[in-house]
């Protein structure tokens, strides 16, 4: 069997649909087939540690930092970003209106409004924990449910339970557009605290002899290339852009 490049990525990236146009473009110029392994952030990092994939595309800066510090990964490249948002029942929107995401969280915690936390060490979950910490809140009690589910299923749980939730924009919009949920954006501003960055990390070839280093470099270079960045910029679901390219796309 021919060599194949494997990269592990999270469900939210896969479910957004961005992979298809990117891989299609890559295929035009490169022979090596690319296999996207779809899994959770934690698992993706674990696969990287074991050297079972050549690259990982994740959105957990802190974990990625440790990953590189421990020399499991090299050559981290920011690929794209967007902002997390807080979704919840529409009726609370006026009450929770605030300029700052921390203010919103404070009100939710004070009133003990139902909150769904993913509780799965995913990028989103880590971001949520970070936010509570910055807001100096310690969410605990019956109102705070730790679902242990993926983003999509957690959104559905929030819908069923009329609860609030921190979610990535792509998954939220895709569920909203397909009428799976009626939760509205409670806080959706470009608050730097809500930044959601996707980065590509190559697995350190010195740790594992089987890593396809050359091909990985090519793929990594491709994703930050103008062509790929433009695909990211122009990728839209129902006329709404889901991701911002990390570097600028210069249209020809």
């Amino acid at each position, binding site marked *: 069997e021919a060599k194949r490049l494997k990269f592990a990525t999270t469900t939210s990236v896969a479910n957004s649909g961005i992979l298809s146009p990117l891989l299609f473009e890559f295929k035009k110029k490169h022979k090596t087939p690319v296999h996207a392994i779809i899994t959770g952030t934690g698992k993706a990092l674990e696969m990287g540690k074991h050297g079972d994939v050549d690259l990982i595309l994740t959105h957990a800066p802190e974990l990625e930092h440790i990953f590189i510090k421990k020399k499991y990964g090299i050559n981290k490249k920011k690929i794209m970003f967007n902002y997390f948002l807080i979704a919840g029942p529409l009726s609370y929107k006026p009450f929770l209106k605030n300029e700052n995401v921390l203010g919103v969280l404070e009100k939710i915690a004070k009133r003990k409004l139902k909150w769904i936390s993913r509780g799965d060490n995913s990028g989103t979950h880590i971001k949520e924990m970070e936010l509570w910490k910055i807001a100096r809140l310690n969410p605990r009690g019956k109102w705070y*449910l*730790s679902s242990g589910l993926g983003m999509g299923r957690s959104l559905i749980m929030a819908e069923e339970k009329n609860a609030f939730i921190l979610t990535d924009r792509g998954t939220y919009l895709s569920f909203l557009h397909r009428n799976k949920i009626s939760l509205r954006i409670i806080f959706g501003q470009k608050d730097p605290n809500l930044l959601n960055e996707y980065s590509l990390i190559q697995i350190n070839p010195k740790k594992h002899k089987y890593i396809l280093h050359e091909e990985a470099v090519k793929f990594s270079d491709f994703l930050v290339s103008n062509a790929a960045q433009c695909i990211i910029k122009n990728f839209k679901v129902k006329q709404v852009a889901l991701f911002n390219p990390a570097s600028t796309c210069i249209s020809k």
Partner: protein
Amino acid sequence: MGFLSDGIIDALSLIINFDQMVLRAANTTIQVGVIATVVASLIGIPIGFFLAVFSFKGKKILVVLTQTLLGLPTVVIGLIVYGFLSRRGPLGFTDLLFTPTAIVIGLVILAIPIVVVFSYTTIKTVDLRVRETAFSLGSSELKAAWTVIREIRYEILAVILAAFSRVSSEIGIALMLGGNIKGFTRTLTTAIALESTKGEFAFGIALSIILLSIILIANLLSFIFRKL
């Protein structure tokens, strides 16, 4: 590889330290599994008996369909029951979604085809003379059925145990209908799934050792029951 041995050590330390989360998850697993198995057996064994013993029109089709239902993925059962229990669904008013009861409902649906198919095959192998003998000694239809079941009680017990194993090791239903809510609907299997998505493989293995111990104990208890 190392996570296999790590898992065993983790499992031991969890058990020894009576880890709260693990205890609650194990408790939920056992409760939900036992109730679902009992309900499915009470429904499934009579159906299996009926299919095995009586002949009627459309019986073959019924058997084939039940056998096919063995292939219903747990996620799909989860989806279907979700459709009923969801707030938008016809049983939304019950507010059962994301409760242990919802898991039980799904598990019963999972277990019924298993119990029906295997009790059917088992009862079919019973000597036809058992029922004839029962009748010729003055038994009613019901007593004769009971006599047949008694003749293969160990095999039926094996079927029930298999259903229990299946039910307590599945993930899709518990995840979809229970919601994996910590301390409430988190079972050992959904905890395992969660740990595995977190990349905490050793901890996942540890939890599954605890799960297997529960199933092992159920099997051993059945052995004691046989001795009685």
